[in-house]
């Protein structure tokens, strides 16, 4: 396959970036999108040019590191997959592919396609945990959780924190991410003790980071590599409103 690429190049967060054109020939349809970038970077290195910086780690679709905005969509045209699980067979010979970093005020570009997603970590640090002394593993079936509830929690817990929801949202809203992190604990008995505090603190942190509001366009859920449902955003709204109206927190 012959592929033309338009890639966002930016030296660092202080320097303005621009789109740069590259051409790649002999691209195998079986390559993953990131492997195609590896080939590009090897080419660039041989030519003495700076390789394109991009985030990647597991390349198995479970770590949430890769983060490219490909042809106008986060993680590219295939739904339910991360960039590393996207293969070149999803494109046609001769295609031009536009690759940009996530765009959000809360996700500043560090270099090329790499953005700083620490804002997500700070949101989780604000309340996305259960603060109990776990001690040794409890006996099985000590806490009874119906299968449906466990599945519901798992649907939310699948979130890998990649940020595609923010990248897809027209408001750069982090609602699906925060909803997933609030929801997977809120539906389980272990998360009940701190559920009000969790919703209040995590939403406050989300706002402080400069993410936008939810317009319920559903783009986040469609682009989420784990297809996390909008049901969780409704739960977050419920949790937050309930907490604000009834908790003892100021």
């Amino acid at each position, binding site marked *: 396959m012959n592929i033309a690429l338009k890639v966002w190049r930016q030296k660092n967060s202080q320097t303005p970036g621009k*789109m740069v054109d590259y051409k790649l020939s002999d691209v195998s349809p079986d390559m993953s999108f990131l492997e195609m970038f590896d080939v590009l970077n090897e080419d660039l290195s041989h030519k003495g040019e700076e390789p394109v910086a991009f985030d990647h780690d597991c390349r198995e679709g479970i770590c949430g590191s890769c983060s490219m905005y490909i042809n106008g969509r986060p993680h590219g045209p295939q739904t339910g997959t991360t960039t590393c699980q996207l293969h070149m067979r999803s494109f046609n010979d001769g295609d031009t592919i536009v690759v940009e970093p996530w*765009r959000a005020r809360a996700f500043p570009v560090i270099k090329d396609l790499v953005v700083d997603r620490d804002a997500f970590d700070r949101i989780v640090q604000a309340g996305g945990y259960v603060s109990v002394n776990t001690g040794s593993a409890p006996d099985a079936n000590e806490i009874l959780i119906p299968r449906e509830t466990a599945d519901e929690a798992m649907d939310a817990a699948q979130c890998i924190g990649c940020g595609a929801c923010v990248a897809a949202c*027209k408001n750069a809203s982090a609602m699906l991410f925060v909803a997933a992190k609030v929801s997977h604990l809120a539906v389980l008995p272990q998360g009940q003790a701190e559920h009000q505090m969790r919703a209040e603190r995590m939403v406050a942190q989300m706002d402080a980071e400069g993410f936008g509001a939810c317009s*319920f366009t559903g783009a986040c859920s*469609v682009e989420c590599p784990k297809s996390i449902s909008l049901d969780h955003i409704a*739960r977050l709204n419920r949790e937050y409103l309930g907490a604000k109206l009834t908790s003892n927190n100021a």
Partner: protein
Amino acid sequence: MSWVTTTLSSTLGRKVVMSLTGLFLCTFLIVHLVGNLQLFKGDEGQSFNEYSYFMTHNPIIKTISYLLYTSIIVHALMALILTRQNQASRPIKYAYAKPEANSHWTSRNMGILGTVLLVFIIIHMRTFWYTMHFGPVVLNGETITAGAIPEVTYDGEPIKDLYAVTVFAFSYLWYVALYVLSMAALSFHLVHGFQSGFQTLGLRHKKYSPLIEFLGTYVFGIIIPALFAAMPVYIYLKAHHILF
């Protein structure tokens, strides 16, 4: 800050304000529609005029109407605040974005649709509400009544003839077209807005969400705007002796 101001200045709290005012405006639409359906009665406007008399004189209705005006203003102002906040959340836009691949046009353009509706409400209130309350009918640079709205007498009781004003306004094709287009905007606004209002309040459940979706799409998205749009069309056709 107190918990109230904290809540109302959060993105979620602001959306709750949008939701509550929006859903209140939806309930108003039902009342407004039911009343205005009197226009279709073939009684030369008697039921419609009696209905408008009731709406402008009943103390409860008058109180609710102030709540209504406030809701429109708060809904619009909060939308402006949220839009600015949302735009600030992405200072550098994508060079190439394909939003149509993951969301509907209406859900992404509620601000534009809402602005069309706000302009419509201003024009609509100038034509009918202002005339009913304050005075002479001037339309298209033409004054149809000298000092005040014409009156009509039923059972010896003179009341303002809003029906005559309505018939006059809708005898202009451009004015009818403006209403029909505005109702199209209302349709798109409500197809997304009604359901979205419930989502914001966290009211989403597999037992009830299909009903909310049905109401949002068919009742508020299609039936209500279509009936509203039918009024100017019907009066225009009747005034020009086409069909009716």
